[in-house]
């Protein structure tokens, strides 16, 4: 989230699209309720289903799953055409005026540079024209035909309300009503917030969905302001923490990158990370990359990391592929290339697509270690449960080791919420039985592994032997110790560069925040964006002061937010180029003539002059990008792409299937279904009664939503002779499930490109372990394909068929 949960109460319009906030984030949704009750805010829901969020919305518009980009581009077109643009903001704070290279083009749904063999773009034409001064060329009048604004206008021209209706199935008048309500937020004193979640991310073009809305928010002037922003509602209490701490194969902590094979040494690695400003005087904060990287290496390898050995750069793995994401790991596992798998707090057998493939892959492992407080399906993938898990146990040789861990309520540490707040928590209960903290298990494994490396050597034992492991109890690092390490400390006295006699931070003391980090090895820091969370002032994450001096929901002393306890990102954009708040009643910071002051930590150097230093300090441009250059694999502008399994062809290019650059493994191509065989458009989602695959273990949640079901329209029920509450079989090219049918008015067929599209809704909370009745997950049906940039599984739009059926059978002797 650019903003915080509590800030949503400041909005005038909430757009929930690509998410179902009331259902999946009921606690955070209270701030929508607050905005509605106290500001008269309106709520719009755009979703294939009339959701629980829609039930409290002021306006609901249906949309076909996977067609969001067309809708969003249609909105941008409407706003441009009808003058619903916050011109001062868009001109000053976006790259609207930047001139794009000659050679950039777009036709047949594809941008310039597409290579169908490689399924990739040559992105060199997707960039600015650079002047002789080394800076990007701009045309502030926006008259240059190749300025971003004019390219954008041309790009969105296709998405007329009629075209939106044709692609999305949203009736034109409903689309126009949404557009009109959103257009009202282009004034400086009306803001809109976007709340989205997996409904946008879990598509092969997920990142472009989000970009589409971000661009709309930029032209409306809604980024960096109170009640505005792009607000990703994270699906776990700490999934934001997971990404922040780089728990992905291609990331280090704080969004530093894992080196690739093309970067064999540190200087090569750093060369592409100079981040020279693209406009004069701009901050381009990533210029500090080296400081964060060196401090990270010092945190990893302590005194072993020296300037001479390039801070142990060689210890880091070098990726030979873009990422070893979960899909790739399971592909390799299924290919017999993986021997062992440690599955920590993760239930891939239900969470990842194409369950049959996952079962096959797990069956090829030599060993599987699961670390979980609950009995997961993954840990029991070998166990026959009749129709619910029809495996031949005797043929599976994988050794499964289950290590029971503690539940969140038995643990101490911090959870990072969607709003980037690191909230410290304390254990409320003692772990049962043999359950151990994850840190204990990891500590024990590490110590044993290190011992083996010490004794036996091996190809390259140094990264293990030299790993910094300075904990009070090496078997079980304490949460506070880890948090302090993440915050970082001075390794030698840090002196003031202006006055070498002045010690800013004595050796051994915690750094105040990342502004004190250095690239000379004198500081260490586990995760630079978290620096400041546990400094000499103490554990700032444990703060519980709920006073709100500004009265606008900032709560600056409640826990701690990254970066630097800043609650609203890009908040310098909440003021105009003179430093005056766009909306004085919702001021965040303002320029007092010499510095920025206000309720929140300014997201700009405190003395950076407004109008000169632009607010998007992480970008070398200083401004936000309507045109994202080559930053994304699938285009500098979002363009309509169909899901890989779509009930209708892509109107831009009927030969184009899915996202043209999304990675597809060879074996999965044959497993894509076509609408003639699988005529119905399915989508997967969560229900408020359950949390993923956890709460089915809880009796209370199981009572509230006991049994797996699929939701279909009355029209589809009639078409297929299905009765409400009866059993149906739903199958895709990859598998089948049996479910109770829930026939509802909340799903209606859509008319897309002249065809009737029936939507099948498949919630995801059931499996074959736990307290609830045995059932299936939609992942028995979903395709094995990921988002083109980040490989998030695309499980929100796929094709199925459906017919009445009988109840699924458990294995003999078990009644479900």
């Amino acid at each position: 989230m650019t903003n915080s949960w509590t800030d949503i109460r400041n909005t005038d319009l909430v757009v929930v699209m690509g998410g179902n906030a009331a259902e999946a984030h009921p606690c955070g949704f209270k701030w929508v309720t607050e905005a509605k009750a106290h500001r008269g805010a309106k709520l719009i829901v755009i979703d294939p289903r009339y959701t629980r969020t829609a039930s409290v919305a002021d306006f609901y518009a249906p949309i076909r799953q996977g067609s969001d980009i067309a809708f969003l581009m249609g909105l941008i077109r409407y706003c441009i055409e009808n003058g619903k643009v916050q011109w001062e903001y868009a001109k000053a704070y976006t790259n609207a005026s930047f001139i794009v290279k000659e050679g950039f083009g777009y036709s047949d749904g594809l941008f310039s540079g597409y290579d169908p063999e490689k399924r990739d773009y040559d992105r060199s034409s997707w960039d600015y024209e650079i002047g002789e001064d080394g800076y990007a060329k701009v045309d502030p009048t926006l008259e240059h035909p190749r300025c971003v604004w004019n390219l954008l206008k041309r790009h969105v021209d296709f998405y007329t309300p009629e075209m939106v209706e044709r692609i999305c199935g949203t009736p034109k008048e409903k689309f126009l009503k949404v557009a009109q309500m959103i257009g009202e937020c282009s004034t400086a004193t009306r803001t809109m917030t976007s709340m989205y979640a997996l409904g946008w991310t879990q598509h092969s073009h997920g990142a472009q969905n989000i970009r589409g809305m971000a661009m709309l928010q930029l032209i409306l002037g809604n980024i960096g302001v109170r009640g505005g922003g792009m607000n990703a509602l994270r699906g776990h209490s700490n999934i934001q923490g997971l990404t922040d701490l780089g728990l992905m194969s291609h990331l280090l902590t704080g969004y530093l990158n894992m080196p690739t094979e093309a970067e064999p040494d540190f200087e090569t690695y750093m060369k592409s990370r100079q981040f020279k400003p693209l406009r004069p005087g701009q901050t381009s904060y990533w210029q500090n990359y080296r400081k964060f990287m060196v401090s990270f290496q010092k945190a990893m390898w302590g005194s072993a990391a020296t300037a001479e050995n390039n801070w142990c750069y060689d210890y880091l793995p070098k990726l030979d592929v873009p990422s070893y994401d979960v899909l790739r790991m399971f592909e390799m596992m299924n290919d017999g290339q993986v021997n062992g798998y440690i599955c920590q707090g993760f239930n891939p057998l239900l969470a990842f697509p194409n369950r049959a493939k996952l079962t096959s892959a797990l069956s090829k492992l030599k060993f599987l270690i699961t670390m979980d407080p609950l009995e997961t399906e993954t840990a029991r993938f070998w166990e026959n449960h009749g129709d619910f898990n029809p495996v031949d146990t005797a043929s599976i040789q994988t050794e499964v080791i289950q290590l029971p861990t503690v539940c969140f309520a038995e643990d101490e540490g911090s959870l990072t919420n969607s709003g980037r707040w690191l909230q410290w928590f304390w254990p409320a209960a003692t772990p049962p039985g043999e359950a151990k903290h994850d840190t204990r298990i990891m500590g024990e494994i590490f110590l044993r592994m290190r011992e083996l490396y010490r004794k036996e050597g091996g190809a390259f034992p140094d990264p293990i032997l030299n790993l910094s492991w300075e904990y009070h109890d090496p078997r079980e690092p304490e949460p506070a110790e880890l948090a302090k390490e993440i915050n970082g400390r001075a390794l030698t006295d840090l002196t003031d560069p202006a006055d070498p006699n002045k010690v800013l931070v004595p050796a051994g003391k915690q750094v105040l925040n990342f502004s004190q980090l250095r690239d000379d090895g004198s500081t260490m820091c586990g995760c630079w964006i978290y620096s400041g969370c546990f400094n000499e002032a103490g554990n700032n994450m444990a703060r519980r002061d709920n006073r709100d001096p500004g009265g606008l929901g900032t709560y600056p002393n409640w826990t701690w937010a990254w970066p630097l306890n800043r609650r609203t990102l890009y908040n310098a954009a909440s003021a105009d180029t003179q430093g005056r708040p766009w909306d004085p009643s919702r001021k965040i910071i303002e320029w007092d003539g010499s510095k920025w002051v206000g309720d929140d930590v300014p997201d700009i150097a405190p003395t950076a002059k407004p109008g000169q230093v632009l607010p998007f300090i992480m970008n070398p441009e200083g401004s936000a990008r309507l045109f994202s250059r080559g930053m994304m694999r699938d285009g500098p502008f979002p363009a309509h792409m169909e899901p890989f399994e779509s009930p209708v062809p892509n109107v831009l290019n009927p030969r184009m299937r899915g996202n043209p650059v999304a990675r597809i493994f060879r074996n999965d191509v044959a497993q894509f279904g076509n609408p003639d065989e699988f005529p119905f458009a399915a989508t997967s989602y969560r229900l408020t009664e359950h949390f993923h695959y956890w709460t089915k273990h809880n009796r209370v949640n199981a009572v509230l939503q006991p049994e797996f079901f699929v939701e279909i329209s009355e029209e589809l029920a009639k078409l297929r002779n299905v009765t409400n509450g009866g059993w149906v079989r739903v199958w895709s090219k990859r598998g089948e499930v049996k479910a109770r049918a829930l026939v509802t008015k909340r799903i209606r067929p859509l008319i897309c490109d002249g065809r009737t599209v029936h939507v099948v809704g498949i919630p995801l909370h059931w499996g074959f372990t736990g307290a609830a009745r045995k059932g299936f997950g939609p992942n028995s049906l979903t395709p094995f394909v990921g988002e083109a940039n980040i490989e998030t599984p695309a499980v929100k739009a796929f094709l199925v068929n459906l017919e009445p059926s009988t109840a699924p059978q458990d294995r003999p002797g078990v009644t479900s």
Partner: protein
Amino acid sequence: MSGSNTAGMVDSPRTAVSNPPVQPVAAHFGEADLCRRSATRDLPAPQRQLTPVAKLIDVSKCIGCKACQSACIEWNDTHPEMEHNVGQYTNPHDLTAEMYTLMRFTEWVNPETDNLEWLIRKDGCMHCDDPGCLKACPAPGAIVQYTNGIVDFIHENCIGCGYCIKGCPFNIPRISRADHRAYKCTLCSDRVAVGQGPACAKSCPTQAIVFGTKEDMKRHAAERVADLKSRGFANAGLYDPAGVGGTHVMYVLHHNDRPGIYADLPENPRISPLVQTWKGMTKYVGLAAMGLMAVGSVIHGVFAKPNRVSEEEERHAEDLVEGRPVPPPPPGQP
């Protein structure tokens, strides 16, 4: 949470949102504050009047998350049965002796706009000011009403007859098959007594359920109704039905002119005239009839001679049996 008196009333908690004190607290109210007690004639008048409380359920803010149901199960430590999906979101499918509150989901197409509305109503005891359950209850002290309006079931006094079910205009009480006692929402009287709000209100993420003095809740409802009217719900209003003297659980409804669309919320709930007759006239007339019958018999017995068989009649019988002449039957006798 509880503050000074207003107009001689003892204050009650105003909100379920703020955190209660953690140290043990003595109960704010108890047996001395009963204004009604089932099957009890000579209930001493309460010494004080507690501020009437109310729970306000704003249907327009409710997202149907069932946190209230979950909190209710947890707080009351009940064990509702895990049922099957029968093609609806309402789970369990009905209130039970283990499920005191239930989100009822209705898909309703507004005939005026042709738009679908998903109406979600939290069902449960309405805590009527004139409680039909209490009126019907034959067991002394099994159902009580405190002067703050809470209607509570005192389970040790309950005999499990199910009369409360017949008395209730909202179809709320349920008899446990396990212990044969009636159960329903207590408005968390145990929590309210120590300054906390009901568990459901505490758990409600959108504050669709709020708890406080009835006066405050009505004021809050008025604001909500004004907001809903501004959003085009011309008939938005507060459901506080007069037929049962008003309720201590109230709804803000977007369509207050049509409560029936919210899973059959009664339009004009009142204690059924049949129940009124049963518990009223029948009781008095019946007792009078039985009394008159008994008294009449006694009077007849005292004043009328006993109907005794005479010696002569015995002789006639002997004569008849012996075949001796006896008086003949009167003429015309068959």
